[in-house]
């Protein structure tokens, strides 16, 4: 019985992803690029180089207009035929795709695949990636602008951070869609970096990027602010729903009603809007200091 329920939920959740049904509106394009990376996709759109992108992975959700493109599925559960049906002349991927046999099949069929350089997960690294992609798509000038904007946003954000007296403890909760469970992001994740830049402190340590959500973890960390990613926040629906997450209702954050919704695609990778996102985070987590 349990199995049948799981199957039904899985089937429904897959069919709920209406983006599989998106029509291919770029049929006449000679160059056809399938991009399987959230970070690459955001940069490509920021560069204005999306002309020949014909399909993306289902987790690429920024910018909003990307949702008009057909998708080839979840980046760790790709299907060879789904990709081939887009007639790609190039696949861009960031070395985080699977399953293994799909990559083998694509290589065997000699579909060109490309990764850009691997840079550090820092602002400087993001600048280098944007410059490389700018060169690749002949958009060097735009890339330079993006880097400039990112650097200046970050400068502004870090200056703000220096002026803050408080360092609120922030708990970031992410809804893991693989097994429908809540996860907490640790200091070692990209979200951890963003919070640190925004002048906060991650409530949870840990050598991996994410940890299983448990009442003890939450209670022990006693955060001043709780951030929930969009999907999880919307699923719980309201503060009452969030209070039902074990451990949350006893935290300072809940008592002071400092529980906010953040976009998942703002928190899990660095990109041209990272500076902006840090500024947005500062507004959320340092509200008290602003009002004083």
């Amino acid at each position, binding site marked *: 019985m349990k199995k049948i329920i799981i*199957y039904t939920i899985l089937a429904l959740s897959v069919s709920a992803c209406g983006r599989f049904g998106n029509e291919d509106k770029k049929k006449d394009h000679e160059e056809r690029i399938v991009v399987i990376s959230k970070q690459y996709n955001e940069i490509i759109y920021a560069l204005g180089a999306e002309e020949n992108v014909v399909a993306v992975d289902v987790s690429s959700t920024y910018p909003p207009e990307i949702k008009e493109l057909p998708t080839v599925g979840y980046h760790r559960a790709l299907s060879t035929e789904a990709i081939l049906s887009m007639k790609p002349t190039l696949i861009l991927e960031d070395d985080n795709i699977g399953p293994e046999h799909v990559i083998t099949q694509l290589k065997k069929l000699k579909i060109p695949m490309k990764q850009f350089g691997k840079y550090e997960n820092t602002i400087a690294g993001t600048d280098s990636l944007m410059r490389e992609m700018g060169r690749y798509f002949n958009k060097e000038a735009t890339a330079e602008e993006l880097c400039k904007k990112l650097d200046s946003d970050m400068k502004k954000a870090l200056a703000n951070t220096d002026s803050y007296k408080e360092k609120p403890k922030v708990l970031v909760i992410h809804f*893991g869609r693989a097994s429908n469970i809540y996860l907490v992001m640790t200091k070692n994740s990209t979200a951890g970096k963003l919070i640190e830049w925004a002048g906060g402190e991650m409530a949870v340590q840990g050598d991996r990027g994410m940890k299983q959500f448990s009442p003890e973890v939450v209670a022990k960390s006693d955060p001043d602010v709780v951030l929930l990613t969009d999907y999880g926040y919307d699923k719980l629906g309201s503060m009452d729903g969030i209070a039902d997450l074990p451990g949350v209702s006893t935290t300072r954050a809940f008592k002071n009603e400092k529980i906010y919704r953040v976009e998942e695609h703002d928190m899990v990778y660095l990109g041209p809007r990272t500076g902006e996102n840090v500024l947005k985070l500062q507004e959320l987590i340092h509200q008290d200091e602003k009002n004083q």
Partner: protein
Amino acid sequence: MKKTSSRYIGVFPLLSIVLLIIVLFSIRYGAVSITLDDMFSAIQKMTSGEEGLNLTERIFMEIRLPRAILCVFVGASLAVGGALLQALFRNPIVEPGLVGTSCGAAFGAALYFALGATFDFNVGEYTLPLAACLGAICSTALVFFLSQSKQTGKSSVVTLLLVGIAINALFLSGVGFLSYIARDPQARSIIFWNLGTLSGANWPSVIIVGTSTIICLLFSLRYAKHLNALMIGEEEAQFIGVNLKSLKWKTLLINVVMVAVATAFVGVISFVGLIVPHLLRILKGSDNRFLILNSAVLGGVLLCLADLLSRMLLRPAELPIGIVTSVVGVPIFIILLQKKNYFF
């Protein structure tokens, strides 16, 4: 006796024709459409040793064709495994994974996904099937070992069944634990593997699974008559000269090899092994000689059909085949159960 054999005669050719048609459909349709012309020209080019297949022809030769054939072999393996075990245990709810095989395989695979990177053990694309196969062998061996009675040194069929259920639960909780500690993408891989997928099919896997299926099927047919005797009762079977102990071990061994090899390459596919033999029993009768041979064909038909649907329903995305086998199989099964007065 003559009368009973004649009622079975038409079934095999009929099922074989259905199988052929389904396989053709399965090759023809998918996210990428392949016409009969593409198929012919690809085969022509391959046989004449000509180079330069175009993309559609390569998809046909390297993805679609091996996938369809693998489907047939895996379906056959699971269904024959089910028929054998149902006969051996004289119990209708038995499926081929019952003696621990598929849960062990799932555990081996989960171990590979969750911790594979930390072990210095890698044989390329065969690492996963090997891990799953080793898991299957370990769990099945454990079931056999634990079901031996300490006093008599013998194992009764009932003990085997119960120990199998217990060990299955144990290994499943192992899978649960591993997906609990795994990172998000790894947990995702474990879930998908446990729902089965044929998208990894290639010629080496077809050859390996095909060899095991054909050899095991031939052996199964040899023991079908003895299994028929066993259906009447253990004592009756011994009375007409069946060596019960050897029959039991041989049947179990055949089942384990077939199911372990098939599961290792495609993941856990439930339900096929359970319903195919029942469908045949409902439609015709329960002579094991008839059941085993036709289970092989009908298993292939059912799995091929499920695979076709799994590729077509959400085109271009693919549904895990485990979902489809249940969704397609359950209604047919229930309707037939209600229509006929069915005795096992």
